[in-house]
């Protein structure tokens, strides 16, 4: 017992180390957490949104699918945002194209131009796109329509984010 006596000096240094360590962990742990956090965050499936469109009802003809992302929080402004997509089947593949014209961002329509019923049409400056989203040369758009990521779940179509057109 007497051999293991803690000297006054040792006691003081243990105490300081203990308290110092505790305080240091308080600052370092959150920093580590911030550094590692993005790695731990899940991504992918959660970003898909359900649409009211049944997959087995899709055909070769593009139909407009409207869907809503509920409770989107943008700063202090909370809202349900509505989106649209032009969806059709190409063989076994489901193609969902963004309706946003690549020229200046108007909304395009399928068959909106009487003279070109098999194309997408932008009413603003008569821009046209082929069915796969390829822009028709000589009309204002400078690139093909964006494509949505698609997923099927319980027979319904789910749409994710957009990516550059892969069909053209």
């Amino acid at each position, binding site marked *: 017992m007497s051999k293991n006596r803690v000297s006054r000096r040792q006691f003081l240094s243990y105490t300081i180390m203990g308290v110092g360590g505790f305080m240091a962990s308080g600052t370092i742990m959150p920093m580590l957490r911030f550094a590692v956090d993005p790695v731990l965050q899940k991504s992918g499936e959660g970003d898909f949104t359900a649409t009211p469109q049944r997959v087995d009802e899709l055909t070769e003809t593009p139909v407009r699918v*409207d869907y*809503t992302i509920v409770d989107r929080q943008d700063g202090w402004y909370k809202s*349900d945002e*509505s989106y649209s997509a032009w969806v059709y089947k190409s063989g076994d593949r489901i193609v969902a194209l963004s309706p946003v*014209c690549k*020229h*200046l*961002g*108007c*909304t395009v329509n399928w068959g909106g131009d009487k003279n070109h019923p098999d194309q997408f049409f*932008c*009413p*603003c*400056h008569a821009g046209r796109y082929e069915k796969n989203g390829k822009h028709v040369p000589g009309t*204002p758009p400078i690139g093909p329509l964006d494509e949505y990521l698609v997923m099927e779940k319980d027979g319904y179509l789910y749409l994710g984010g957009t990516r550059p057109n892969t069909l053209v």
Partner: protein
Amino acid sequence: MNWNSQDMDTYFQQKDYIDTLLVPLLKLETVPEALKGSSSATEFLMHLSNFIETQFRGRMMVLPPFTYTQSTNLQEMGNVLSKDLQLMDFKHIFYLTTDRAWTDVDIEGEMIWLPSIPLESMDQQLRKTVIEDQLRQVLPLLTNKWTE
């Protein structure tokens, strides 16, 4: 496009393509018994102008609404707007309102009057359909002017 600085930058770059101005005219009534109807009409007008903005943002600048109260002299207000909005470089000016009184006012540009529809009791989908129907009424007015 909207009246914000980001869209304004795009406007300056693409001035040749954006030749139309849409001006919502909004009547704000302050008599207690008219508040409900006035706010409902506001909702309708704002939804509609937002929807038109999304459809035609590449060709149209949508202004924030010009708001007035029931005692405003519309002809005077119209004169001021006609004079000042001309200073901007737009080929077509459209006014959008649910206030019938504007149809008697002499103003530079096209006046589009639509009766207000109470949207508050409708669900999202129905609301969208109603707004789209309204747009279909407006569409020929726009495209006819554009193709003139």
